[in-house]
């Protein structure tokens, strides 16, 4: 039977002490606050935004093909669903399966395009618009806008052409003969026009049959609606990283409109394409960042995020196609259900 009280000898005392210290040391290593060697304790972690909740995705990718450009810029849909991709010094017409039908050379780098109901192609170059027939014959070259001009988006109404000028931070209004009719979006407090904030060259414009223009205002993280005469009607969108917001310094970077008035917006940084209602409520994701890993990586390089980007085109039947300017491919999307 063990005694209730015993003297501890010196050897036993020190050996118990050493055991305790060793256990404490092990516990510190196992549970310590310091991160394991090699991990950055100051890491900027946005990994949680690189996956989309599957319940929010409303489209499937049913095809993907290369456009053959080393530096594609924008894409437009033709009246019969053909896709016109701008890049380098030409515009290429593809069928939805990726078969190239036409390739016509323009004077300099083609940056954006819009296609009329009769197949006439309006092409935005750096500082002016050129007009081509359905077979690629040049019919007109309009007057240059100015030294600061940097056209990045085109849209058509029945009688007018609207050119988004990232350099001049305005949408330029023309009739179809090339006559300049005015500027839209210049900051004007008296008309309640807030002005476009364009930190990187991604101003875009779309026209809907309701008679209103949709213009992305990337620095304000929203979409603004204007009449063709330049009256500011309304705006929607908010800044944030969540799927319902527009992320980064400047998004959305591209916009198109579905036949029923819902908007299709594209973002860079976290590359994703989304659909919002006509009044701006988030509805669904067409394609999330998991569909464009290279594009997401383009904004993780050592310089800055001006090399990534997407563009979307909606045809008359409401079908959506996406141009990934990093992989230089077009993704054909199909609505689920």
């Amino acid at each position, binding site marked *: 039977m063990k005694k209730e009280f015993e003297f501890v000898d010196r050897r036993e005392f020190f050996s118990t002490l050493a055991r305790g210290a060793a256990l404490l040391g092990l516990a510190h290593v196992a549970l310590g606050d310091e991160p394991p060697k090699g991990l950055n304790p*100051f890491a*900027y972690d946005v990994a949680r935004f690189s996956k989309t909740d599957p319940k929010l995705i409303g489209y499937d990718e049913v095809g993907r093909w290369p456009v053959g450009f080393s530096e594609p810029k924008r894409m437009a849909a033709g009246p019969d669903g053909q896709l016109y991709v701008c890049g380098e010094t030409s515009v290429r017409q593809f069928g939805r399966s990726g078969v190239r039908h036409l390739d016509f050379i323009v004077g300099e780098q083609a940056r954006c395009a819009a296609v009329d109901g009769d197949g006439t192609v309006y092409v935005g170059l750096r500082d002016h618009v050129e007009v081509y027939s359905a077979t690629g014959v040049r019919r007109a070259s309009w007057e240059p806008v100015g030294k600061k001009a940097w056209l990045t988006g085109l849209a058509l109404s029945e009688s007018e052409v609207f050119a988004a000028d990232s350099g001049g931070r305005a949408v330029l209004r023309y009739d179809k003969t090339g006559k300049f009719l005015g500027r839209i979006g210049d900051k004007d407090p008296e008309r309640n026009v807030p002005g476009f904030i364009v930190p990187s060259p991604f101003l875009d414009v779309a026209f809907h049959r309701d008679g209103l223009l949709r213009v992305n205002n990337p*620095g304000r993280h929203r979409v603004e609606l204007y009449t063709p005469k330049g009256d500011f009607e309304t705006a929607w969108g908010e800044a944030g990283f969540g799927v319902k917001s527009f992320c*980064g*310094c400047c998004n959305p970077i591209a916009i198109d409109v579905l036949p029923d008035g819902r908007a299709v917006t594209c973002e860079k*940084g976290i590359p994703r394409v989304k659909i919002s209602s006509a009044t701006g409520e988030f509805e669904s994701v067409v394609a999330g960042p998991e569909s464009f890993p290279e594009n997401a990586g383009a904004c993780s390089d050592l310089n800055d*995020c001006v090399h990534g980007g997407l563009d979307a085109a909606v045809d008359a039947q409401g079908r959506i196609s996406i141009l990934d300017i990093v992989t230089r491919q077009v993704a054909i999307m199909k609505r689920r259900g």
Partner: protein
Amino acid sequence: MESNSKPGEPLTRRGFFRSGARVAAMTGIGGLVGALSNATAKTWVWQIDPSKCLRCGNCATHCVLEQSAVKCVHAYAICGYCNLCTGFFQPDPNALSTGAENQLCPTDAIRRTFVEDPYYEYVIDEKLCIGCAKCVQGCNQFGNGSLFLQIRHDRCVNCNECAISRECPGDAFQRVPVEQPYLLKTTRR
């Protein structure tokens, strides 16, 4: 010969002065070489090449100084003066306000000041900055990349072998002439 006197022999005056002159000459040459090498060392200083920096966090933790000599600097000409500055705000902040919970910087070293709708100016408080590059990463990943790291030479002790450079995974540390001690980002591309 008198100068090559054998051990134990008395040293002559001539031999003494000759040896003294040799020692003085050697000392002078040694001093000159030392001075020259010192002068050469002082003409080079350490600096970070922003185009190679991987924003790994080592600058904050590996400098021999208690608070790193590496600081975030701001190229205002490149900055977009964004409302949602991804160098200032946590990813997905609950509001675009200066609340501590919304700020990315672990030491509150960035000042955000309203300029005019919708622009904000961001200024680095270098006394608080620890060079962790968290803001640099946010700015580069989603913005124009106007924030970047540089070694501040009023703090750097210019170690012969920089402790951070030994650990730099991007090989971004390099010696630059003291006349051009910074590698700054510009708007030229």
